[in-house]
């Protein structure tokens, strides 16, 4: 990897650059406290086909999506149309989650259990918060540096059954990073609303 660290990847971006990835955050407003919570959900990292609990992923971009239909048959000869959905995503695999202990919360709803999210809160008047949420004005910026192994990949396969004849094949392409800061900003003005900084000293 010695040459990797010296080589330019594209433009004037080298391996030691500060990378900035734009992500759409989830927003939740509490009118009683006039607090707007901005959070970034994470997901598990799958190393090939095994869960790697040392890293957490943030989805940045959805790549190709397509589907294939075929005829399936059970052991009794009954036939059914099977639909397979294929999806590629490009995600950040974050190595230094421990650097953000006080900004990460466990989030639970009917679909997600023990989901860890990055959270930042700002005070906003109800009309402003409503406008920001309805017009998707807020974006998150993940500022990060590459860390070995730099890239990795994984996949999740959910096979079809006769009762549920649809399967999915998700392929995740990870860029491995140490996060430096996370900014939440107003896309229309560029104004920075909040920053989440790493709690440990930068290496």
């Amino acid at each position, binding site marked *: 990897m010695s040459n990797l660290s010296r080589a330019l990847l594209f433009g004037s971006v080298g391996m030691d*650059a500060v990378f900035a990835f734009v992500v759409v955050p989830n927003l939740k407003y509490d009118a009683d406290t006039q607090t707007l919570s901005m959070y970034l959900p994470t997901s598990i990292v799958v190393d090939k086909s095994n869960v790697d609990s040392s890293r957490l992923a943030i989805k940045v971009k959805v790549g190709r999506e397509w589907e294939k239909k075929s005829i399936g048959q059970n052991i009794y000869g009954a036939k059914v149309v099977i639909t397979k959905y294929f999806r590629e995503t490009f995600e950040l695999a974050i190595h230094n989650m421990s650097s953000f202990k006080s900004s990460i919360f466990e989030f639970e709803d009917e679909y997600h259990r023990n989901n860890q999210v990055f959270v930042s809160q700002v005070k906003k008047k109800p009309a402003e918060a409503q406008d920001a949420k309805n017009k998707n004005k807020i974006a998150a910026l993940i500022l990060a540096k590459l860390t070995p192994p730099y890239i990795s990949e994984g996949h999740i396969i959910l096979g079809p059954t006769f009762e549920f004849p649809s399967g999915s094949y998700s392929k995740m392409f990870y*860029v491995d990073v140490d996060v430096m800061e996370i900014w939440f900003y107003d896309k229309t*003005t560029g104004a*920075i609303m909040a920053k989440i900084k790493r709690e440990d000293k930068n290496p």
Partner: protein
Amino acid sequence: MKKIFILMFVVFLQIILCVNPSDSADKEKKSVQPISTSKEKQTRSVSKYLNASFNLAVDRVPTPFFGHNIEEVYKAIEKRKKVEEKSEFETSE
């Protein structure tokens, strides 16, 4: 003899003039191709994504801002890794 030589010269000229237009068209085609290729390259290189390291010292995010293209970053590293991992007896391309 002189007349025959002049006649031959005129015929030769006509042949050259007949052949030349297609030649020049070919040349035009050939000369046009690189221009269109460079235009394609221009459109490819003019990306909405960031092409340099991000400056952490800014107090405002540019608008509009798309940051780095994660797919481009992934593919660039993948390419570098393949070059790095190639055998010493293999050529790069």
